[in-house]
């Protein structure tokens, strides 16, 4: 009587992918704020220098300006990034969207996962405004830990099935995107201050970049001294650090492969092709080449490629209306897949 396992509904795959992306996004924003709060104690700067880059990283500086006007202050930035619901990337918005998506796939995820998303949502709903200064760091730490808890609960209570792989796809693509953005903005900011190279000032800044992605300790173990090229190598090309772009793309590509069942080194879908190309590029590029040709240009292209993968996933799985008809053994280069 037992039939084949049913593939996921396309709508469910889409929702679960976005649920994971939004939780990852909320966690990243909380971490950025936390690192900056720390940094300003070590290195007090004008708010425009201290906090504006966080807005720039999120890519909606225009909207922020429109919304608040006047000079950038810490309170405005934190309000905007954490609680403002007109900012669709604020922590509050991300958790709301994550919960909406979770609610629509509640039968697919485990009860424990739902309870955790719902509890994070309720927490930020009741918080709603800036915490007291002495509570500030803890508040954002709690959000981060809440997101980590969700990830842990997910891994421990849900079968690592197709839905789980769609979640991992979402989480890893979001993470790679955020790491590349923070690196881009910070590198751009730090590079002009070449006179500071080798000073404690430089050290603190690069440490902050690493801390922004929770990578300071792991970097230390591997490289010891802080050096810009090594930081880039670590954050982009590292194969073991879970927030390095290459690690993220490797994980995402494994999950995509688990979803499609396509053998390694082949592709049947557009998204698989793009993912494979990006993975190969990260595997076989050295940091020296990247820096020589310009990090900003490199990261820009990287983000475009990841956007392409995201679109590919939507075309390939989320809005599919007709059965896939490609053969298993189609080799790379012969075609771009059934939906192209």
């Amino acid at each position: 009587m037992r039939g084949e396992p049913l593939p996921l509904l396309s709508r469910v795959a889409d929702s679960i992918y976005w649920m994971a992306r939004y939780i990852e996004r909320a966690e990243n924003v909380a971490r950025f704020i936390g690192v900056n709060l720390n940094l300003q104690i070590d290195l007090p700067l004008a708010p425009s220098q201290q906090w504006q880059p966080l807005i720039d990283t999120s890519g909606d500086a225009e909207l922020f300006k429109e919304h608040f006007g006047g000079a950038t202050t810490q309170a405005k930035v934190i309000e905007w990034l954490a609680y403002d619901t007109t900012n669709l990337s604020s922590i509050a918005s991300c958790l709301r969207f994550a919960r909406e998506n979770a609610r629509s796939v509640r039968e697919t995820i485990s009860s424990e996962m739902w309870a955790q998303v719902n509890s994070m949502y309720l927490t930020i709903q009741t918080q709603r405004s800036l915490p007291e200064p002495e509570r500030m760091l803890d508040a954002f730490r709690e959000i981060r830990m809440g997101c980590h808890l969700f990830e842990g609960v997910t891994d421990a209570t849900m079968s690592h099935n197709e839905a789980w792989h769609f979640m991992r796809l979402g989480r890893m693509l979001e993470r790679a995107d955020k790491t590349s953005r923070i690196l881009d903005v910070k590198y751009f900011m730090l590079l002009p201050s070449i006179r500071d190279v080798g000073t404690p000032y430089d050290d603190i800044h690069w440490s902050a970049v690493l801390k922004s992605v929770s990578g300071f300790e792991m970097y230390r173990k591997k490289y010891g001294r802080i050096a810009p090229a090594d930081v880039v190598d670590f954050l982009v090309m590292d194969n073991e650090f879970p927030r390095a772009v290459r690690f993220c793309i490797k994980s995402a590509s494994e999950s995509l492969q688990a979803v499609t069942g396509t053998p390694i080194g082949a592709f049947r879908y557009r998204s698989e092709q793009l993912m494979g190309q990006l993975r190969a590029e990260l595997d076989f590029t050295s940091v020296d080449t990247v820096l020589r040709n310009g990090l900003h240009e490199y990261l820009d292209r990287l983000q475009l490629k990841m956007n392409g993968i995201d679109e590919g996933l939507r075309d390939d799985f989320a809005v599919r209306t007709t059965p896939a008809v490609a053969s298993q053994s189609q080799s790379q280069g012969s075609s771009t897949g059934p939906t192209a």
Partner: protein
Amino acid sequence: MRVDGYDTGGFYDEMFDEARQPRAEAQLLLDTISALGEGQLERCQQAAERILVQLGITFNVYGDSAGTERPFPFDLVPRIVTAREWDWIERGLKQRIHALNQFINDVYHDQKIIKDGIIPEEVVRSAAFYRPQCVGINPPKGVWCHITGSDLVRHSDGRIYVLEDNLRVPSGVSYMLENRDLMKRTFPQVFEGLRVRTVAEYPSLLLDTLESMAPAGVTTKPVVVLLTPGMYNSAYFEHSYLAQKMGIPLVEGRDLVVEDHAVWMRTTKGLRRVHVIYRRIDDDFLDPETFRKDSLLGVPGLVSAYRAGKVSLANAPGNGVADDKVMYAYVPEMIRYYEGEDPIIDNVPTFLCWRDTDRQHVLQNLETLVVKAANEAGGYGMLVGPHSTAAEREAFAAKITANPRNYIAQPTLGLSRVPTLVGNQLEGRHVDLRPYILYGDEIRVVPGGLTRVALRKGSLVVNSSQGGGSKDTWVLESEAGNAG
């Protein structure tokens, strides 16, 4: 907490007899409650409410844009049903559902009951949920009402009556299941020394029922899905809850497509065949090609696939013909006609306003009767005579005169009460009971149900949309063990 000062207020109380002495089956529970320290029951109650919010066990309130999700209020004091009474209820419901199913099948086929003069043809034809599109359809195994949620009430005479049958898309069973979990979590000590029958097998029985109705020719395990109108429906929590507990996909209309008279769902690997749909969408919205053309919730062509026997629907479209409140009055006759037996559980006496003598009686006695629109649910379109104003009665009299077919009237029922936590003390509140009846290869009733409670003092309206809450329902095992 003191229970000896409890006032039954002259109503039938499920826990205390006329002499205000605890009924035998409630004694242990009342002892436990009496032994609780000051404020302990309140604390348990607050813990339960917190859990409801944390778990997002909520319903969506229509026409309330501010807080669209709200927890369904839960009262910690359970309602107890003895083994003996439950045995009687179970037999009565099985008899009733069997007869109703035969009636529905008859209505859409030979109409023997009309030809034999038991029910007037115009009553059937004018029933709001009669669907001529369903004439001649043969659902698998002849079952039309797979899931029913009949409402039972106990009157001041101490007897239980069927108030409504709820054949179409009954809801609330998820709260029956969650209420028990909530009780076990927040108030575990009350189960001590009592043998309360479990309700936990409901999702498995429901899945069995759904799988039993697979279309002919399906040899593998049938693909069963639950069709929801979506996240903004008031019962969405229940839809996703049941899908999760049964391990079946929760689908929306846009996830399904009809091709070659078969139903398919859109998956990441293309279209996959669907065999059985537990639909939680009303007939009208099921298929724009057959019913309401403006429906965006349904699936075009679904009914033609159903008619062709390529997909099964639970409940069967058209079964609401027997949900009409005028038709309700004929159920005792149906039981006698199809089963050759007297009804085990009685109907509430019902006056049909289209009968001249009945209507005159109703119009003259509005202040003592409850008048209901024949086709409304959720406590809407209703006049509770003793609680009404002269202006309301006048308005209803005009409506009845204008459209007598659409109104019935019943005596105002006492509705029994159960002690309920109000502030820091127990007060009696009126309740009803909705057991759930499954009809697959056989008819099964899960020992329990949803006890709805009118939380407003003196209110007789238990609907969640109008200030109702719910209680856990304890069906006790018989002394000799569970007989059945």
